[in-house]
């Protein structure tokens, strides 16, 4: 595999210290939580996590918080606006000498794909437009996980969700294509936009280290296996996340000042089917009858993506 790393080159570079404690109420094998844990390890303890409604809202449950830093739950639509208020207040208080600069903290939005692509997209793009200095961590489990796995704009074509169950009028399940949050962000030229995966911790943490050096909006779009929603065993969460990268379904990339680089590129791509067959949310593609045409389309989407990525040298 072709890789690109600056700071986190080996497992030994990962700090042992935890800033997000274990024992939370989230599902075993939650890919979103695993990604967030690695993310916070790279970021350090001086953080405020500003959260939109979703599974991660159940991280801080009165009177406990698993974070070494601070936490603010806002609402589903407006975590980036909450981040704006925190950032601005910190700036003003430091400017006026009411808070020592050493007391400053990084502001991080934590949100699921449902909030990021849907109800929260307005406040997100607005915060990017204002050039807010913040990290945006979106764990992408490709549906509304917390409410029982309903379709979100991030749900992939051909996947089963609770509101797009496959049926005679829509054998594909979800009939729409996954909305591209990476490109929605990139269109506004923020300094840093990346996809990451908890199955590639060094890549993830290295990107955080690079992003930390830049002011402005910074997106981390993190692949998030969701065992109950996807129908995989908790123990297989990381394997499935690996398969997503090895089949080319989840490209690991970053855009620094708009220029896209793929940070992990498999030498040989595995067939997309290898990734699909291990999840019950795609079972209807294989039984009772194989949906050949749809499977071909799903492979084609990935092939086309990589063909254009190679052509653009990205």
């Amino acid at each position, binding site marked *: 595999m072709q890789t690109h790393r600056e700071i986190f080159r080996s497992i030994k570079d990962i700090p042992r210290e935890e800033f997000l404690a274990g024992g939370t109420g989230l599902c075993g094998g939650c890919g979103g939580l695993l990604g967030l844990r690695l993310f916070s390890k790279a970021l350090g303890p001086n953080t405020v996590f500003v959260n939109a409604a979703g599974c991660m809202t159940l991280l801080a449950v009165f009177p406990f918080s698993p974070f070494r830093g601070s936490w*603010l739950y806002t609402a589903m639509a407006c975590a980036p606006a909450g981040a704006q208020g925190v950032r601005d207040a910190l700036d003003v*208080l430091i400017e*006026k000498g009411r808070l020592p600069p050493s007391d400053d903290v990084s502001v991080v939005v934590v949100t699921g794909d449902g909030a990021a692509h849907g109800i929260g997209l307005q406040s997100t793009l607005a915060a990017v437009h204002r050039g807010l200095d913040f990290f945006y961590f979106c764990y992408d489990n490709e549906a509304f996980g917390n409410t029982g796995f309903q379709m979100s704009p991030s749900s992939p074509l051909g996947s089963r969700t609770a509101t797009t169950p496959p049926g005679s009028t829509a054998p594909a399940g979800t009939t729409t294509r996954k909305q591209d949050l990476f490109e929605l962000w990139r269109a506004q030229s923020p300094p840093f936009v990346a996809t990451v995966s908890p199955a590639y911790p060094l890549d993830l943490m290295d990107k955080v280290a690079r992003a930390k050096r830049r002011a402005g909006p910074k997106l981390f779009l993190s692949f998030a296996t969701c065992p109950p929603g996807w129908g995989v065993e908790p123990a297989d969460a990381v394997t499935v996340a690996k398969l997503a990268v090895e089949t080319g379904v989840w490209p690991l990339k970053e855009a620094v000042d708009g220029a896209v680089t793929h940070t992990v590129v498999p030498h040989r791509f595995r067939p997309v089917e290898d990734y699909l067959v291990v999840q019950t949310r795609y079972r209807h593609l294989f039984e009772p009858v194989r949906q050949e045409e749809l499977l071909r389309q799903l492979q084609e989407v990935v092939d086309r993506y990589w063909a254009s990525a190679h052509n653009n040298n990205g």
Partner: protein
Amino acid sequence: MTRDLLTGNAAAAWAARLAAVDYIPAYPITPATEIVETLADWVRRGEIQSRLVTMDSEHSMLAAAGAAAATGARVFTASSSQGLLYAIEMLYAVAGWRVPLVLVNVARAVAAPITLEPDHNDILAARDSGFLQIHTASCQEVLDSILIGYRLAEHPDVLLPVLVNLDGFYLSFSREPVDIPDANEVREFLPTYEPVHARFSASHAMAQGVAVLGASAYAFFKYQMQRAAEMAETVHETIATEFCRRFGRCYGSVEGYRLDDADLVIVMSNSFSTIGKAEVRRLRERGHRVGLLRLRIVRPFPHKELVWLLGGRRAVAVIDQNLSVGKGGILFAEIASAFQGRPAPPMLSFVGGLGGRRFRPGEFDQIAAAMARAAHEGGSSVPRLLYSAVEYRQVSEMLRIAHHDVPASVV
């Protein structure tokens, strides 16, 4: 101190300036825009040390406002009508975070149909959110109530955000002489905000707005808010007394007008109560012993004061400038409930002044007559909708010109 002709909006902006607010998230809506525009101008000229950020909606505006207050800044913002309703989800959140800030609402009726003129369905939709509510009747009171509002919101026994209401057009754009207190004197009354519990910093980690599992924790938080709001009654009294001593203007939860010897009492709120006062003077000249009670603080609701001031009257009429569809006037229901378990005067409910519609002198004659009758026959909670034959004819005429049939159901 200087004295100037200020609109209600300018008075609100002046109050924010005098309170030396740190942060102003903004989103425009008529008739509140002038408040934020005025502040933006001062920020750009360097006349105030505040940061003003234009947000993408009122929902985001309140999220930013609350989050900044939770970080330890003094925050001011303003909205109206559709904007306030759009932000309601965040009003509940911010109040639940127990962070102090002042939000000005420039009252405007709510669509549909859409209009720019005021009534109080917008502000009263925020009634149960946990924001305290001060309803003002003059440009001076707007300025003063915002300063008092910060002291109230930031008081360690209260820690609830405050909504200050002023009527769109009638106050927002009316110029009145306003005393602008000296900045140093205001600083003595309202020192720099020192957060008691709410602040985010590297040396002070805090979890705010967390989830609760189970009703016992949820109710624990909600009951604390209720207790804080109850405390706010006496806290407001203390602050208002101090304000009165320093600045010579005195405010209570309610304002009485010619109440002492009044047999019949009209209850109103906000700017139209000045119309009510003029009508009281006119009715007095005709021999009715009428007085007026203006409800100034709607949250915390002044149960005791109302019972004290209205109890024993021969009749009371509540004029609501809002409509809870299918019920009637919201304030009538609140005032009537204050008498639960005590002898109440006969009470009548009137709904009018919707969408900026002015009250007519003839209506006050009818209200006085109805009260006089109720004094013998007893009151009624069935709302009477103030709508005149003249208005009905106006609408009929419009419909006729547009070639539509005229519905008969309203009259």
